[in-house]
């Protein structure tokens, strides 16, 4: 892969790197917020490849999908944070390892 000119491959590689970072964040952090934010990062990495392919195929469907993904991410953050608040009220912590009991 040459450094110049910038081809779709560059964008796809960046997308892959960001996705990997997101997965690493989800796997290695205990904090619920960290997990949520790493999820957002993964979604964004996917969005980047969507936009890249939209330009490659000169088709706007990719853009529409990115907009849908953004909306879904908003809904996900909304519900996810509500769950975190409810859990925090129950357990007084945001440590993921503490949320393991099915009762109480």
């Amino acid at each position: 892969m040459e450094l110049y000119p910038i081809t779709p491959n560059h964008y796809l590689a960046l997308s892959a790197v960001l996705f990997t970072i997101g997965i690493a964040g989800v796997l290695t952090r205990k904090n619920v917020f960290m997990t949520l934010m790493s999820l957002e990062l993964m979604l964004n990495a996917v969005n980047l490849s969507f936009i890249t392919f939209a330009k490659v195929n000169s088709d706007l469907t990719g853009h529409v999908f990115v907009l849908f993904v953004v909306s879904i991410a908003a809904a996900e953050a909304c519900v996810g944070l509500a769950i975190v608040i409810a859990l925090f009220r129950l357990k007084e912590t945001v440590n993921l390892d503490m949320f393991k009991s099915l009762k109480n």
Partner: protein
Amino acid sequence: MLEAMVFYILAAASVIFGLLLITRVNPISSAMTLIGVFGALAGLYAMLNASFVSIIQILVYAGGIMVLVIFVIMLLNLHKDDLQPMRAQPFWVILALVALFGTILGPILFCVLPNKDWTWGSLTPDFGTLMMVGEKIFSDFLFPFEILSLILLTAVIGALVMAKRKL
């Protein structure tokens, strides 16, 4: 040349901010670095002729979702125990990262991409503007769009039900 420079700067910024995101101890610092990632990605979207999406990226992601996340982080009174950097031992972390690299990143970087010969498509000047994307959404994707609005409504109601102490 200018395009390459801007791309590498934005790409480096997004990767560095992403790495900072998963290594910061304090969730607020992480949230701010995530905003940095979003900003860099918005710049990349703009370079890919997706002006509307790049604005939406900043408007909804950085301006909406992240404010919500920060708001909730501040709302909860986090203890010292909640602010721990890593889940596992460093050895396992490194092993997990190596495994990830081997399974996802490595194949893409060294097998798929060099063999694929993508080229940019030919674009009209108003590709990716508000007008064009709007037309696309309201013609081909009208039904998914309506479903999406229902999903958002459900999410709002669900969040209210879960987070409110007394309804």
